[in-house]
């Protein structure tokens, strides 16, 4: 099946009056994993927030079609219910709200949104335990407040755990590799790879090539100054690693 999950056409977006995305276009077919690479300030995180519907990220031109419908018309919770998942670069700490309470509310809000019956506490717990074990996470994690006191690695694992529980159609991973040591990177990448499926697409946003050794993408796009300047196969990542972004951005290498 070659249905496109996501089609972005000529997307322009501003943050605080400054234009960050300047005509970005991208097509993501079902079942494919695309990597979005680019230097700092190229608009990678802005793209992820625009897709998730964050307030303050204003689309000034272009369109985003998700499974045939206008994504930009939906509120953030409606997008999530429709199957979009953003793994945050900086997961938020929320004292007083237990992971289990939050995640059960999210799972059931999504099931309600799709007209499916809600999971009861037992079924929820059963599923959560399986996914936690896969990610080598302790069960007591469920009763801890969301991300409070978590290490960088634990926060990222929590994102992948939520993704596994919510089974999205489109997963956007925003610099999920940042702040991870090599063991945590392997666990997180394994978790992501396990979720690859013919009916699930992923957009993996990263600054470095190293994550793509673990999550091998079908396509790589290079983002610079708010626009895609190059697209290719996985060999593109190696070229970037060797030569830096300068060749694509038209600037001298900063590092």
């Amino acid at each position: 099946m070659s249905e496109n999950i996501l089609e972005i056409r000529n997307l322009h977006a501003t943050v605080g009056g400054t234009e960050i995305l300047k005509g970005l276009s991208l097509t993501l077919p079902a079942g494919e994993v695309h990597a979005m690479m680019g230097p700092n300030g190229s608009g990678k995180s802005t793209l992820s927030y625009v897709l998730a519907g964050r307030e303050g990220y204003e689309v000034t031109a272009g369109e985003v079609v998700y499974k045939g419908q206008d994504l930009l018309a939906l509120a953030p919770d409606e997008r999530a219910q429709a199957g979009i998942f953003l793994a945050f670069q900086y997961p938020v700490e929320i004292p007083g709200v237990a992971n289990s309470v939050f995640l059960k509310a999210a799972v059931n809000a999504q099931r309600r949104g799709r007209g499916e019956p809600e999971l009861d506490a037992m079924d929820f717990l059963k599923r959560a335990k399986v996914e936690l074990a896969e990610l080598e996470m302790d069960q007591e994690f469920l009763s801890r407040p969301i991300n409070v006191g978590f290490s960088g690695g634990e926060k990222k694992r929590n994102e992948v755990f939520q993704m596994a529980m919510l089974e999205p159609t489109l997963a956007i991973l925003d610099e999920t590799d940042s702040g991870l040591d090599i063991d945590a990177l392997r666990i997180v990448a394994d978790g992501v790879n396990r979720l690859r499926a013919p009916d699930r697409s992923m957009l993996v946003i990263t600054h470095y090539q190293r994550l793509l050794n673990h999550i091998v993408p079908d396509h790589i796009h290079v983002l610079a100054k708010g626009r895609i300047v190059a697209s290719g196969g996985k060999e593109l990542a190696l070229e970037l690693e060797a030569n830096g972004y300068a060749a694509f951005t038209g600037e001298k290498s900063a590092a």
Partner: protein
Amino acid sequence: MTESATETLNTAQAHLRAFDALRSGLPGAGLDWLERLRADALGRFKDAGLPSRRLEAWKFTTLAALERAPFAPGPQAGGAPDALPELTETAARITFVDGRFDEGLSEISRPAEGVSVTTMATALANDPGALQGRLSQASDPAGSLWDLNAAFMADGAVIRLADGAALDQPIHLVFLASGTANRACHIRNLILLGTGARAQVVETYGNAADAAGAGFTSAVTDISLAEGAALTHARVQDESLKTVHAARAVVSVAGEAVYAGFALAMGAEVSRQETDLSFAAPDGHARLMGAYLGRGRQLLDHTTRVDHAVPGCTTEELFKGVLDDHAHGVFQGLIRVAPHALHTDARQKSQALLLSDRAAADTKPELEILADDVKCAHGATVGDLDDDALFYLMARGVPEAEARRLLIAGFAGDVIDSFDRGIVGAYLSACVANWQDRGTGDGHA
């Protein structure tokens, strides 16, 4: 009678006029020391009057509602309790309606070894000597309400644990107002824990299901913890919105004893919950926590005073408020460290969440530190719901209203988690959920 028909009294006048008629019917009538205590307290109240906002301790909180109407004590009226959350397990439950013991709504048949649970009226009748010197009065003119309570105290619970006695389940004290118009209730509780004793006591102030009239509830709980004793003490104020609620816990903490207190304010038009704690010997610990949840035009005040007069004691304070509509929250925290109270460690934190532009929070930390070599800190924040947190929840599919509800519960839940993760904590969380269920909850009403 013709007099009262032509003249509107205030609460102070109504009490002063009622005293002579009531005194012979109050518990412990005929006991010299108690008669004297009541008369002295009334005399001081007569001089001081109701506290006004001119007093520093009352600068944020007005008792104008007591000036407008003649609240006064009167006979007990019956009433079934309104739907309130229940503790999942209790060692005993004592219910008072309009400040007087209601046997039918009580269950005190299972006292454990070394544990005595009774009423103030019974204790004064059977063993008055054990209470002499234990019942507090006001410590300064700003506390004239507590003198009024001492003069008129009608009933309450008396809980005593012998040395080494321990209760695993909480004792629940329930105080219901019948809603008889202009009724004042003066409740007095006493909790005495012997050396190394351990107990949990929950006080819940609510109203009868059909309560309609305005009322005034005054409640003082005197607490003394002997060496190494530990008390977990929660006070839940969920009275009708026509009520003025004034409560005080007076706590004395001996060496290595631990007092953990939680005050939860959700009801009443005006609510003032005070804690007045002093360390009687070195190495005691106090944890004073609380939350206020306000809507409409409620005024909810938490005021604490902690006296570090001896070395090596610790105080940890955390108060959180959620304020919607025009609600007004107040936190005042005084910590006094005497010159020789070395190695004191006192930390105080207050946080308020304003859900509406018209809600307001006043915070007054006061640290009077006269000793060197102490650790003291305080911090206060006032803010709106965290947009990042709201977006995080919504990005997982949780609708905005539910996300706001989770965050508000979490904000209050955080301080409950810090206080207790057992039966008492679960009860406090249920009370917060109950408050959320019955309200508009998001400030857009």
